[in-house]
């Protein structure tokens, strides 16, 4: 017998939730329990009184799976709102990466030159290493890392995607 596969789409969901203990586990566990993908997940408090957190989830699946994911998130009592930023239109996505590059001589110079092209900042330097801070969309970061691999990349830390809709509207 065969396991079926389907066409998949990548969606960025923005979820506001009551800032309660266990809410992240509830959401992450719901994804695991129902077999949905999490490509990245970020969470932080976003209101002054610390009562609401925003969780940004990048997920992938068939269109009907994405619909189910949104409905499943929406039915969790502590979830305030779920927005499918990918479906709703214009939005900004950013992530931040800290990239450690080790090397000397020509590699070191090339790393600095590429960092400048990608507007990455040097946040730590030694005689034989740099740590770059770079922000941007996932594609830009991926591309930057690909280049850095050629010039001595040894370690990466990424935040995952934070996203927000364009324009004056809020939710």
């Amino acid at each position, binding site marked *: *017998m065969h396991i079926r596969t389907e066409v998949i789409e990548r969606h960025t969901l923005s979820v*506001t*939730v*009551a800032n*309660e*203990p*266990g809410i992240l*586990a*509830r959401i992450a*566990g*719901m994804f695991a*329990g129902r077999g949905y993908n999490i490509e990245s997940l970020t969470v932080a408090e976003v209101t002054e009184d610390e*009562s609401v957190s925003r969780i940004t989830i990048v997920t992938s699946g068939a269109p*009907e799976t994405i*619909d*189910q994911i949104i*409905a*499943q998130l*929406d*039915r*969790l*009592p*502590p*979830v*305030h*709102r779920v927005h499918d930023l990918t479906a709703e239109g214009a939005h900004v996505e950013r992530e931040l990466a800290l990239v450690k590059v080790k090397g000397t001589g020509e590699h070191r110079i090339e790393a600095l030159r590429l960092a400048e092209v990608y507007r990455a900042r040097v946040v730590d330097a030694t005689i034989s290493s740099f740590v770059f801070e770079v922000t941007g969309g996932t594609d830009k970061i991926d591309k930057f890392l690909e280049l850095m691999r050629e010039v001595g990349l040894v370690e990466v830390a990424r935040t995952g995607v934070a996203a927000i809709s364009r324009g004056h509207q809020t939710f």
Partner: protein
Amino acid sequence: MAQERTGADILIETLSDLGVEVVFGYPGGAVLPIYDAIFKQERIRHILVRQEGGAAHAAEGYARSTGKPGVVLVTSGPGATNAVTGITDALMDSIPMVVITGQVPTALIGSDAFQECDTVGITRHCTKQNYLVKDPAELEGVIREAFRIATTGRPGPVLIDLPKDVQVAATAENRPRTSIGYQPQTEPDPKLIESAVEMIAAAERPIFYTGGGIINAGPAASEGLRELVKLTGAPVTSTLMGLGALPASSPFWLGMLGMHGTYEANLAMNQADLIICLGARFDDRVTGRLDAFAPHARKIHVDIDRSSINKIVSAELGIVADCDRAIAAMIATWKKHGHQAADLSKWFAQIDQWRAKRSLDFPKSTKEIMPQLAIRRLWEATRHRAPIISTEVGQHQMWAAQHFGFESPNKWLTSGGLGTMGYGLPAAIGAQIGNPDALVIDIAGEASIMMNIQEMSTATQYELPVKVFILNNEYMGMVRQWQDLTYQGRHSHSYSEALPDFVKLAEAYGWKGMRIEDPAALDDGISEMLAYNGPVMVDCRVAKLANCFPMIPSGAAHTEMILQANEVSGEMDDEAKALV
């Protein structure tokens, strides 16, 4: 300044204030302060079960038969983990339940203390919501929110984990809960109701497919369904969980659908041009093979849980609403437009041809008691008393669903989604507590009944006159049936070895015990059981190898029903074996 109250007192007072009359529970170290508070009051009745799993199922039976939330109180660690099956059962069948678990003192949480477990972690995915309360000032607010969440929207279990020091600590403060954003949608969108009514009025072969959502929406929803069916003239089938919403004696009733549904119900679903799904969720036991499910039908799906709509089967029209509100709106809209019931005589003529197959007929025997006959005779002997029937899980459960006619809602307690053997006896106990004057019968199998047999003692203690009617075929019958169907009859561990003598067992617990072996003694035996004013266990010896038909094999279409045993083949391919 308000008076200081301990966490335990806050719990009891808030429960009482919320109208809780009964708590099903079992004491232990981490709930001793609560039990002491229970000892000192008379507003809430505590029912002592014999194992925490029994408490959860009893609360389910209480909730399902009364429409009120069931409340469970258990200790930390094993108390909580024993309750997990019942909590999951309540989640799957949308039963309103609030579970209070004791926890080790806050200072010891995370230290692997005696009888500590991560209760909120373990139950996070089998509850609708759960809480660990670390401050008694938050307790009342949490309890009130827990009851609101458990009983509104799609009902379900909510758990509150209460460390022992929080039960003991006193406070005068009561910090209300800030909104967590929970606002279930209960009122349907009127535009969608207009569309639904137009679709129903225009349909040539409509069918109502109803589920547990109608029962959960309260008796008014069942009343509404009866009126809507009369107005539209459309036939009705139902899931296992929805039995009783429409009387089984109604001419519009086609019987249950799905794996062990009637021929007419499944064929009508297959040939319908419009399916109106009210509070059901297109479970795999209902749809059979999905790509062959209802190929000609447009679907209207009414559900209070948006995630049920388009989860399995895509609906042309999805309406998020409480069934009661949606049905009432459909009735009002239908009348407003002056619709008349369409002429469905051709549709019913076709249905009558399917009915003529008499798919629930079973072989007759004068030597053995046929299990189907036993249920029919039990039904005929008790129907005038509108009994509450609970079941365990397996063949006897399906036979009860097929052969016992339910005329009203809240009379049928069965574990549908999770399929929990051992559910029936504690559920019957809970139902009897909530309905002291009702006739409550657990239709059981000899294997299932063993899973919570200890609860017989609970019935004895509270003098509950529950009847347990065991269809004893000495097999885990449904397992054996599937082994016959898919594994060439290799009966691997499905024989009920070393059964107790159920008559002596009943007597040991202070019950009346009876055995019925001869078909000629069946009616007298049932009468004797019913005449006894107290708990009775009946060991009804039935045909050992009877199978439950009709049946849609796993992964087959509605049109591929097996009607009788001689149509059964010996071995299935891997594709079929991989299906549940």
